[in-house]
């Protein structure tokens, strides 16, 4: 049995330690917000937080997450009210929506480490998340908006 802490809840899962974390999240824990895009860590759709860092769950064995803290898109906020989620809704960022769990999880790391990112910072942080629909300009706009929202809340 492997002990996992996912979105602040404890789980015991009877799986092969080599099973990709993505499989465990989706197929065993029914947390289907995290998506399978490429399976080789090239697209970012599977991005989750492992101990606060953005990892690609398609290439992360569940054994790496044993006893660690995992946050998925479902756990990014209590009530889907993270500034990024609100900004994403306000700007209406998604087109098909498939990449956006991963986009949000990567953007969350950016805003945590850089509350006022420039366009160049956004390039550096988000270049690992691919969007086939091409919503990049809206992603950029939403990140700037989320940064503003967070700064207003802190004043």
């Amino acid at each position, binding site marked *: 049995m492997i002990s996992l802490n996912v979105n602040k809840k404890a789980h015991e899962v009877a799986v092969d330690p080599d099973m990709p974390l993505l499989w465990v999240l989706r197929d065993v824990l029914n947390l289907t917000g995290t998506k399978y895009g490429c399976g*080789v*860590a*090239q697209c*970012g759709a599977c*991005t989750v937080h492992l101990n606060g*860092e*953005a*990892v*690609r769950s398609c*290439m*992360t*064995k569940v054994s*790496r997450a044993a006893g660690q803290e995992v946050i998925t898109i479902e756990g990014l906020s209590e009530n889907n009210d993270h500034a990024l989620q609100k900004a994403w809704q306000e700007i209406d960022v998604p087109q098909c929506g498939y990449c956006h769990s991963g986009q949000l*999880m*990567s*953007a969350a*790391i*950016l805003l945590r*480490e*850089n509350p006022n990112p420039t366009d160049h*910072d956004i*390039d*550096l*942080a*988000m*270049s*690992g*998340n691919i969007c086939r629909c091409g919503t990049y300009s809206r992603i950029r706009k939403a990140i700037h908006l989320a940064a503003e929202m967070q700064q207003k809340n802190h004043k």
Partner: protein
Amino acid sequence: MPLALILTVLGGIQSSFKNISAHGPAQQDSVESVKAFMQVYSVLTSPRCMNCHPSGDVPLQGDNSQLHTMAPQRGTDGKGVYAMKCSNCHQATNAPGVHTPPGNPKWQLPPADMKMIFQGRTPHQLAKQIMDPKTNGHKNREQLIAHADDGLVLTGWNPGEGRTLPPMSHADFKKAWITWITTGGYAPSEK
């Protein structure tokens, strides 16, 4: 005995001890040294080494040493930035399959204040850079010799499926490396 003479003798003895180590006293041989270094150079400028010693701040990737897809950045400490820190994808061991991230527990680039660039260096430049503690990660002679067995260095010979190995075995590389250093660490002439 005059003080100056005593100090000179002591200095000479001390510098002799510096050169005597587990690898024996240094035997300066510029010809052998340069010959050995050219073998070292062929390894250090092969993709398995050079890809993580780029001239810019984005690692290189693949046998053709293209810029790493998605352009992860060196960052201040060489470990990447934001959602693309090196260890986010490059885990402790190689991921299975082709075109997947190779692994090592210490996967990173050299830090920004000690970039240890291999890409684009001539043999003369690279030899000088490696022998100088100010540009080689503050390594002394013994540490340089030991570096041939560093974990990240060894990863070059266990690069994961689909990646070409360096042009010689690790054992041959290590022999050339030690020979180069213990015969004086000479740099080939500038051309």
